[in-house]
């Protein structure tokens, strides 16, 4: 391996109420892909934010290219050659690809922006990376995967020497992930050091050289990827070994009644003529590619977006659902794929978030019964293993996985019979993931019914009793779990006209 480009030593960082980083060490070689793993809240993102100058460290040293450095903002880090590709993309949808890449350092022709030159430069960049994107395309027209490629191209254009990837594959389809790996291998050959934050175990062997593990803000250890096993890494992460059993046959009772029936549902181009039934005690998987209309279907059923036509029956009776209020009244809960925008209320506490959908049950006359609210929330904090100092903690201080559990708590407190989970484990670590799987299985055992939208095929196969596949706004097929395979699902998801 090459020479060391970056050494972080004894990094310490405390936020009000949380000791986020506790004496953490990290080291990176030139041309190395170094995975950084750990449960949500383990401190991976915080460590990277310290490196790139978003946060100031309290203690410790950072040595970069042989010199001690201390970046005070992301721009300084960028100029020094350390760039981060964020999990949430920071792209401006109304600008073109080239304009996004060169934002803040536009090529000028006098006082005018030289768009032609930027397009040429962007094309050169893409050629270097073997990416096929038109620089004049509007950013909002690109898929999430392509947008990510643009973000990478932008990083390269900064003459980066270290690139940090924060869960780049979380929102990508399989072929896009392959493309991403191709690019990463290229970058490696150019001697760029890569820090790769991920939750996906299978990626470790494919793409990384070493893997460092963090737990509860502390550094646990580093392994050579080739010699490590999945169980090694997991036990370092959580201190216990998790074993998940895939489902081989449906656990729904033969005579289970239909709890939800959707008939000829239409809502724009993304939802065309959708028909399906959900049985009591069933987990119904919704599979398909990004943009196939799964989320839009869920939102239309839930009344979050207007629908054009279609009937919805609950327990056999036709119901009118025109807004989320109607849906909740009929016992439907919707866990959004976009936790930040549609799920949590970051500036309110854990308990306030938990009772949000069901405040009526926590009233004493005109006043909120704070005590009842806290006791009820504490029950779920314990049973879902939500990591928080107290139920009065603001949700903004929690990690992603724990925030997700808080949103789940909201619907559990509401005691909905029909739950729509949209990407329930997106961007969540193995520990929290297995907690949520366990919870889903318990819920259906209690007689609840779940629609689970998921982009991860192994997850769909592991959890579902039945799988519906969508493609371009239509239902392209339905599979019993006994007959479903990854290949069959992918085939249905990519049907040609």
């Amino acid at each position, binding site marked *: 391996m090459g020479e060391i480009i970056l050494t972080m030593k004894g990094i310490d960082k405390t*936020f*009000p*109420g*949380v*000791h986020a980083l506790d004496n953490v060490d990290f080291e990176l070689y030139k041309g190395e892909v170094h995975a950084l793993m750990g449960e949500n*809240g383990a401190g991976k993102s915080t460590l990277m934010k310290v490196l790139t100058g978003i946060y100031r460290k309290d203690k410790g040293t950072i040595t970069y290219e042989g010199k001690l450095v201390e970046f005070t903002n992301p721009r300084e880090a960028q100029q020094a050659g350390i760039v981060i590709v964020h999990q949430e993309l920071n792209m401006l949808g109304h600008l073109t690809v080239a304009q996004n890449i060169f934002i803040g350092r536009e090529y000028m022709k006098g006082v005018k922006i030289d768009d032609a030159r930027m397009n040429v430069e962007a094309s050169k960049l893409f050629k270097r990376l073997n990416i096929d994107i038109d620089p004049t395309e509007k950013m909002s027209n690109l898929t999430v995967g392509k947008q990510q490629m643009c973000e990478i191209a932008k990083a390269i254009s900064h003459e980066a020497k270290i690139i940090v990837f924060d869960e780049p594959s979380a929102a990508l389809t399989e072929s896009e992930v392959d493309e991403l790996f191709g690019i990463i291998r290229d970058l490696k050959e150019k001697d760029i050091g890569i820090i790769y934050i991920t939750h996906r175990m299978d990626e470790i062997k494919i793409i990384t050289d070493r893997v460092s593990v963090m737990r*509860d803000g502390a550094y646990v250890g580093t392994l050579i990827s080739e010699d490590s096993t999945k169980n090694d890494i997991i036990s370092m992460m959580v201190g216990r070994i998790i074993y998940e059993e895939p489902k081989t046959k449906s656990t729904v009772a033969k005579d289970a009644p239909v709890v939800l029936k959707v008939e000829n549902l239409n809502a724009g181009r993304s939802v065309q003529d959708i028909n399906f039934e959900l049985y009591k005690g069933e987990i119904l998987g919704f599979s398909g590619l990004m943009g196939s209309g799964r989320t839009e279907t869920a939102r239309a059923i*839930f009344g*979050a977006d207007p629908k054009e036509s279609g009937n919805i029956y609950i327990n056999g009776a036709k119901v009118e659902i025109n*807004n*989320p*209020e109607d*849906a*909740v*009244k009929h016992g439907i809960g*919707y866990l*959004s794929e976009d936790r930040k*925008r*549609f*799920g*949590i*209320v*970051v*500036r*309110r506490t854990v308990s*306030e978030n938990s009772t*949000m*959908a069901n*405040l*009526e049950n926590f*009233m004493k006359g*005109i*006043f*909120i019964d*704070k005590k009842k609210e806290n006791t009820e929330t504490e029950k779920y904090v314990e049973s879902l293993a939500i*990591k*928080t*100092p*107290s139920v009065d903690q*603001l949700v*903004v*201080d929690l990690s992603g996985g724990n925030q997700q559990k808080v949103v789940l708590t*909201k619907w559990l407190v*509401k005691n909905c019979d029909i739950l729509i989970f949209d990407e329930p484990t997106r961007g969540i670590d193995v520990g929290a993931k297995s907690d949520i799987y366990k919870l889903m299985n318990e819920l259906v055992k209690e007689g609840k019914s779940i629609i689970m939208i998921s982009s991860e095929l192994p997850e769909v196969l592991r959890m579902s009793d039945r799988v519906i596949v969508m493609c371009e706004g239509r239902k392209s097929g339905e599979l019993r779990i006994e007959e479903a395979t990854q290949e069959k699902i992918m085939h249905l998801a990519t049907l040609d006209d």
Partner: protein
Amino acid sequence: MYQIKQNPVVKKLGFNRIVLSMVLIAMYCFFAIFAKNFVSYNRILSALNYAYFLGFLALGVTFVIATGGIDFSIGPVMFCAAIMSGYLLTHYNWPLWICLIASIAIGALFGTFNGYLVAYKNVPPFITSMAIMQISKGVASVFTKAQSVSWPQLAHENGWYRNLIRVRVGNMYFPVGLVILLITAIICAIVLNKTKMGRYFLTLGSNKEALRLSGVRVRKWQMLAYTICGLLAGVAAIFFVAAYTTVQPGYGDQYNNEAIAGCVMGGTSMAGGLASIGGTFIGGMIISILQEGILAIGLNKNYQLVITGIIVIVAVYLDVLSRKRRV
């Protein structure tokens, strides 16, 4: 994870409000030293006259800001309510108590209209409240044919409303207004922190869409915040005329900014989702002492405008800083 220990007394009262109270006391001491005859009961009563109507305005706008909105119309709406109800009293000889109710109703009406546009028609509150500011000024002028209105003096048969701010007891005055303002503030604090309505206000200020997707009828609650704000502007109008009797159409803008300044100074976040009624109360007091003090040390009123402006900037900047730290 562990929690940093905090002094329980400090936690209970809130760090912000302790600092703010100290600012209030320090400011009073400053003027006591540098202004002539500042330490007198009359001075205090005069400062309180200002604090009453400003306090009601600031309490009202706290609800709106808690929902992530803003209302730049409260000053002119207060004037409009005072002028129209006063005109009903003096020109149409309506009974006094009906006029007082009319004042509150006019405020609530403007507030509701504002809230309706914001919540149901998705017009930005900045725009709607600016428009309503103009409308309320215009309506008042048209109604009175651009004349100023003078409410009756205490000796007049309809003068008892002036007892709402102070009652003569022997040789002294008892500040009834302060008691009413305090009670209103306590009710507001309870509404904001202990009831469903207050909870929804704060939640929709932080993430409206998440609240909607939880099955809550957010539009209704959002509109209601503006209604309450307008209603309290109508109450403020009563206390304004009780203190100063004469109102002129076409004015009132200045009080928007002072009320908002008092509110953000008290720790209510312009981004919504965080609000403190206690802070607003003290913030309103600070602004009132400030204006009285500035007059007392012989500077003209324009200095007050400058200082209030600076206070708004500093308070909002501190809020931005505190949020950055948390992200």
